């Protein structure tokens, strides 16, 4: 009997999860409508074909028990499943049931481990000897460094110089886990440059090295593979919601940089037409764009971007009229990226996912609200989702799931500094500390 035949069917739904078309999208040819594809140097193509083959065998067909080992390690090393928790104060404030999917409780403090552990394990199954990865906030780098140490693989992380300065605790964590951290000094020194530099390393070392990309971006099969590793978020959340509340949520809200926590939180719900899917992007300081300087003071590529080709995929991008990629901006390094996963670009065009932008100020307010009223300090990336709740709670249905993609320990310095520059009604007075520093 085949894998799918033996699976118990979901009583409330009647179909096994993997039979749902939303979960199959992009698996065959890496295309999501007009988006996706494989726009990479020829030197990388054989590695990408090899990876596609490995993805199909090990991830989709569980060859050699790969998925079983992955799930077991996610549980034992990662601490899955993560809870779905009712947020009492927020529920009261917005007069709607607010549930939190607690990915901040995953080992490492963010959803990133789901993907990093999956890919490092896959690299092992493929016989690769070395791991490389890019990182923005340092969360993916940290997760990759942890997974590489756990699975005994040497690892090099590329990180923009500016991000190194914004996210020092994560740099220390990567080094403590035995990874090498290479600063990237080109451009503005953020995630975009780190991805380009990691691709350059890969072009030279492709024969024995696997590139663990950190979001649902890049050439096929990365967007589908990362989604499939992250989909555990919504697989759990969907069941937990049904169990706890007796039905599906009306809305799922997640922040979106490249979009991996986003697609992870959406994947199992894409085929549930009644569930509204809301992707919250970083609106930065403004949605206006400075063409002359090539700068977009935001990272809202779904909301404000145009179709183009970057880092191996056709997707929505922040670019000027010539097609040069803009420097993005966000108070949160993890959302500070000019592109977005091709699957999200497609789902937005189809009207299935609603993109919204939340600016730096609102994100910081969200950061303080969740911290002071629920006792959870969120990552600045995640805080955008709570900024959204405050601004748009009128538009939400009666049962909302918010993906708490990560915890805010890494952001404390940045959050206090950014708070100090603003007049935020709900922020504690920290001046006695900041002035003394």
């Amino acid at each position, binding site marked *: 009997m085949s894998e799918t035949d033996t699976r118990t069917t979901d009583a409330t739904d009647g179909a096994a999860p993997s039979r749902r078309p939303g979960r199959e999208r992009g698996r065959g040819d890496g295309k999501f409508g007009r988006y996706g594809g*494989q726009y990479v140097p020829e030197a990388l193509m054989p590695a990408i074909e090899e990876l596609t083959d490995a993805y199909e065998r090990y991830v989709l067909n569980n060859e050699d028990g790969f998925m079983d080992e992955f799930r077991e390690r996610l549980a034992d090393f990662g601490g899955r499943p993560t809870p779905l928790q009712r947020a009492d104060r927020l529920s009261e404030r917005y007069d709607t049931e607010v549930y939190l999917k607690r990915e901040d409780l995953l080992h490492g403090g963010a959803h990133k481990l789901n993907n990093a552990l999956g890919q490092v394990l896959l690299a092992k199954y493929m016989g690769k000897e070395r791991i490389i990865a890019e990182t923005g906030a340092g969360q993916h780098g940290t997760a990759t460094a942890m997974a590489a140490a756990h699975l005994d693989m040497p690892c090099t992380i590329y990180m923009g110089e500016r991000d190194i300065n914004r996210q020092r605790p994560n740099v220390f964590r990567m080094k403590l886990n035995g990874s090498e951290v290479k600063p990237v000094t080109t451009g503005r020194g953020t995630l975009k440059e780190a991805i380009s530099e990691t691709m350059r390393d890969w072009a030279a070392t492709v024969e024995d090295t696997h590139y663990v990309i950190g979001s649902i971006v890049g050439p096929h099969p990365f967007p589908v593979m990362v989604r499939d590793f992250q989909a555990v978020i919504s697989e759990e959340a969907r069941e937990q919601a049904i169990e706890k509340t007796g039905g599906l949520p009306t809305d799922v809200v997640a922040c979106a940089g490249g979009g991996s926590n986003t697609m992870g939180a959406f994947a199992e719900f894409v085929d549930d037409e009644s569930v509204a899917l809301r992707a919250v992007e970083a609106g930065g300081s403004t949605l206006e764009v400075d063409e002359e300087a090539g700068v977009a003071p935001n990272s809202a590529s779904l909301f404000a971007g145009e179709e183009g080709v970057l880092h191996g995929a056709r997707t929505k991008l922040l670019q000027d009229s010539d097609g040069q990629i803009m420097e993005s901006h966000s108070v949160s390094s993890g959302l500070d990226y000019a592109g977005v996963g091709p699957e999200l670009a497609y789902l937005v065009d189809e009207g299935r996912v609603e993109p919204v932008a939340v600016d730096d100020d609102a994100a910081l307010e969200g950061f303080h609200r969740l911290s002071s009223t629920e006792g959870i300090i969120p990552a600045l990336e995640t805080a955008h989702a709570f900024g959204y709740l405050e601004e748009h709670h009128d538009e939400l249905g009666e049962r909302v799931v918010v993906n708490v993609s990560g915890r805010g320990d890494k952001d404390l310095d940045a959050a206090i500094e950014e708070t100090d520059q603003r007049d935020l009604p709900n922020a504690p007075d920290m001046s006695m500390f900041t002035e003394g520093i």
Partner: protein
Amino acid sequence: MAETGNSDAIAAAFADGPAYVPYLVVGDPDYESSKAYVEALDRGGADVIELGLPFSEPIAEGSTIQEALVRSLDAGMTPERFFEFAEEVDVDAAVVCMTYYNLIYQFGTDPGPRPFVERAAAAGIQGLVVPDLPAEEADPLRAACDEFGLDLVFIVAPTTRGDRLDRIMEHVSGYVYVQARLGTTGARDDVSDQTTASLDRLREYDVPKAVGFGISTGEHAERIVAGGADGIIVGSALVDLVAEGVEDDLSAEVVADRLEALSRELTDGAERGYRSRTETVESA
């Protein structure tokens, strides 16, 4: 050589003896100097000139060319300025544009590669090299190139074998760019074994084979042509001279003279390599 391309000028460039194919970034460090530099390459014996149109995310480029692209962008280079350059520059060599796909895709009001190729053809450009466009994604660009008579050059890497090689060789026109080693662009001191292996794999395909990535001296050129290459592509070694000019604040004339001199060294080396090949054939 067989009729493999759309451009007669490129076919002619490979018709007798080894082709010298230099690369420079247009607008590096500024528009006028770079015109003088490209003309110096022509005087130095260029058969085909690859003109780089800078993109903000050049994932196939090493640091030398990355920095040149930044200098050019900072000095205001745009696709339209690039085409004006191609129209104004006074060279006998065939001209090819090397850039990344997003700039080709975004040009003009309709998305898609056709407006870019139409404009390139009007500017006298004979072919395109697009490092982030593998054969799998190339159909629309290939169609536009066929429509306007441009060659579409593909890169073959040391890792390219079997079916992939066949697929690329079906698409390629003008010449095939044989990537001499894995990694990104950048001048090197040695000639890689990967080059010989790649040339061996390509021997049965009837299209000119130009080898690039890392060639920096006349001696490299000689060995690569002796090893069977139909042409040599030289980028970073030339861009290094431009960068030196910027660092040492040299006049455009001095830099142009150095570019011409290195070009002569490279073409002389390639000629020696070619003669050694024909001599071996004759004595056999």
